[in-house]
């Protein structure tokens, strides 16, 4: 859910860039002697669509934040489960080390017997 909201804000940033791009293209087209009417229409529609989308999306985000925001800091943490998982991985690593030692000892014994 958090990633979805942040992703929407990323899309809003791209829309703002589209707004400025469209405004620049329209002014550029108007500066020419002969205007391409269809291009002007497309760019204008794109400009209006994008700016409306930016305004609606940002208003929705601010409305949502008004509803969920408190004044308190969040005190949740994943520290304990992370520590438990880390200890479990340490156990596995220790077992691996000990088995390695055992294997080397057995191999040394076998080599000695062969000699």
């Amino acid at each position, binding site marked *: 859910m958090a990633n979805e909201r942040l992703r929407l804000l990323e899309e809003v940033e791209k829309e703002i*860039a589209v707004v400025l791009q469209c405004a620049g293209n329209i002014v550029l087209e108007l500066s020419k002697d002969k205007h391409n009417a269809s291009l002007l229409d497309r760019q204008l529609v794109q400009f209006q669509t994008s700016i409306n989308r930016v305004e609606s999306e940002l208003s929705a985000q*601010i409305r949502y934040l008004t509803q*969920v925001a408190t004044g308190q800091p*969040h005190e949740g943490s994943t520290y304990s489960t992370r520590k438990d998982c880390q200890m479990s991985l340490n156990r596995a690593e220790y077992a691996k080390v000990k088995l390695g030692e055992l294997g080397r000892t057995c191999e040394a014994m076998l080599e000695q017997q062969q000699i």
Partner: protein
Amino acid sequence: MANQRVLPQSKETLLQNYNKRLKDDIRSIMDNFTEIIKTAKIEDETQVSRPTQAEQDHYEMHVRAANIVRAGESLMKLVSDLKQFLILNDFPSVNDAISQQNQQLRALQDECDKKLTSLRDEIAVDLYELEEEYYSSSYGQWNSTDLPLCEAYRRRDSWASPDGSSSSTQDDREDSDGTPSQEANAQHHVNGHGTASTEKP
């Protein structure tokens, strides 16, 4: 608003500020763009001459274009502030992220422990055989001056018993004959496996 809650003054002020910035920037973009389009219209000559009017229009368009870009930049800053505010204060999503992470870590821990347990069960049999081999070999012997406690008690008990004198001599003979075998037998007791002694003099 039906769900209006009482927020701390700073948070409420901040969100109102965000709203105001959004409205101002959008209005700025729309107004300046509309004025640029209006200024692009060629009109009949007015009080000032055409070059002067052109120069004025040129300067006005520059300023309005700069205003549009400034408003766009301000909107980008607003989006950045909203992202920051969201990460810090959107508790439902933070709780979701924490619980998801906890779930993943617990699953990893359970998998690791399950694999360790199955590994333990698998090598238990092999370890048993290795111990048997080790303690019945010469490497499992101990020095007579450095007895383990169990062996010391066993010898003391055998000396203290009624058959202790004969058994002690017998032990001495056995000691002189085959110390390794007796110590190997004792080692079996120490080991706790309780197997019958294999080596007899």
